[in-house]
């Protein structure tokens, strides 16, 4: 690991105010509106309250947006000539990927820390270990999704790739049961979309698999459902990334 590289890469992201807004400020704002400010926020759910539930959801959304943007911009800048510049240095591909992975982790911590701090101050309640466990799962899930950004970057090869990746995330966040609780057919569809698994897993320490839908009905879901979702989507994202990297190499 090269501390100079990590430091400079972090500096670049901190200069991107617009990006930081979408990564950290927007999900935090949504938590305040949909979680902290609602009267049902104080209602008990599993090992905490509803505010905590909304807080975890928004932290997942923020963290995933962060890693997707790191992955996407890494792919784009590499293809737009920076990769050739790095090809003239002794920097190995492994170190480059490692640097970007550390960067993605650090950037993903920004929305998690911010939203959890606001949650702490505005009445999200839960067992202490639940706070740490959900934050840890969120961070891990976000790392997987840097591949999602990478795929958009590799496929579209232009700056619009990052926008397209983040934009499609919003759709998948709705479909993945992150922004509003789904029920019926929509909930069934949701179980096949990429964000459903990781957000369900992140909430699992709090909910133990129980959820309340819009109609107020209590449902339980076994842990294997989100686990299979995450497993299958990780496989899909991994295979797509390998395919696109190979295609890019052939064209050189």
């Amino acid at each position, binding site marked *: 690991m090269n501390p100079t590289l990590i430091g400079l890469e972090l500096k670049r992201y901190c200069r991107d105010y617009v990006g930081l807004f979408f990564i950290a400020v927007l999900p935090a704002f949504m938590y305040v509106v949909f979680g902290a400010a609602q009267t049902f926020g104080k209602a008990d759910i599993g090992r905490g309250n509803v505010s905590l539930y909304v807080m975890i959801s928004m932290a997942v959304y923020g963290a995933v947006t962060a890693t997707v943007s790191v992955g996407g911009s890494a792919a784009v800048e590499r293809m*737009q000539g920076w990769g050739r510049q790095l090809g003239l240095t002794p920097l190995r591909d492994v170190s480059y990927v490692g640097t970007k992975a550390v960067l993605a982790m650090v950037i993903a911590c920004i929305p998690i820390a911010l939203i959890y701090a606001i949650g702490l101050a505005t009445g999200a309640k839960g067992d202490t270990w639940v706070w740490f466990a959900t934050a840890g799962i969120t961070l891990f899930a976000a790392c997987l999704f840097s591949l999602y950004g990478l795929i958009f970057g590799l496929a579209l090869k232009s700056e619009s790739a990052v926008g397209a990746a983040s934009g499609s995330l919003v759709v998948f966040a709705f479909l993945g049961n992150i922004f509003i609780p789904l029920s019926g057919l929509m909930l069934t569809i949701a179980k096949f979309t990429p964000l459903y698994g990781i957000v369900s897993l992140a909430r699992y320490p709090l909910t133990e698999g129980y959820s309340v839908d819009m109609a107020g009905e209590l449902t339980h879901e076994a842990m294997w459902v989100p686990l299979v979702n995450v497993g299958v989507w990780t496989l899909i994202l991994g295979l797509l990334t390998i395919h696109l990297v190979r295609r890019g190499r052939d064209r050189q």
Partner: protein
Amino acid sequence: MITTSSPPTGTTTAPPPPTSEGIHLEGVTKAFRSGGEVVQAVAGVDLSIAPGEVVAVLGPNGAGKTTTLDMVLGLTEPTSGRITSFGAAPRRAVHEGRVSAVLQTGGLLRDLTARETVRYIASTFPDHEPVEEVLQRAGLADKADRLVSKLSGGEQQRLRFALALLPDPDLLVLDEPTAGMDVAARREFWRTMHEDATNGRTVLFATHYLEEADHFADRIVMMAGGRVVADGTTEQIRARASGRTVSADVRRGDVDAAVERLRGLTGTATVTANGERVTAIGEDSDALARTLLVELGGTNLEVTTASLDAAFVAITGEESR
């Protein structure tokens, strides 16, 4: 390896084996697949560059210059043939910092400052020249804190030059370093290059500006259609162009015969035909003109002094056909 014949303690006066210094290309080709078609970007290049030489690779777009330089830099692998760079594989020479390059436009991070960009690349080398010194030498000391996106095209190119200076390379490769610059910026860039890069360093640069090749290089390698079509000192290349261009119209049916006849004249460098118009470049323009007018019944005769440009077009145009 020749090890048994050398005395164990003696200091050898013989020059080192020729492949351990400089750059050597043997039968190098490169084919790309583009759509369903195979494009032969480099169609067989043999080239040796000795340490200390300043060599210009000259040729039109699509001549294979960039692909050849990319292979010398180890950025792409040749389809066939062999390249040794200071006795090693190109990638290794680059990793050891013996070879570095100023690449064509593109390839800088817009949200870093000039100094940060240099620090970024410097951190990847175990040993490198001091960051401030490199910025100074590239003429960027007063712009070091500016974001790359706020630098002009010429300044960005000097930043790439600063990056190339970091490993203190033995060979500096420049791929059309002044493409897209205005005349003043081009002159300024080459002035910086002259001041710094030339003392003992080997320089290999691609350009399609003849003027740059003429002013800066000791040797010119002309490429067209993926091959080397001319190779010599700038004086030799200029001598090749010292003849005159003689052209005339002949009857359509006689064109091939006329081309053959003119090629047979001594001192004729090239003969080309375009429709009814036959164009010959040669030392003895009088003989060419006489043959065209009297023997071949040519009309609309024109005799011009061949510039380096004309010779270039004649050499590269004919070979790439």
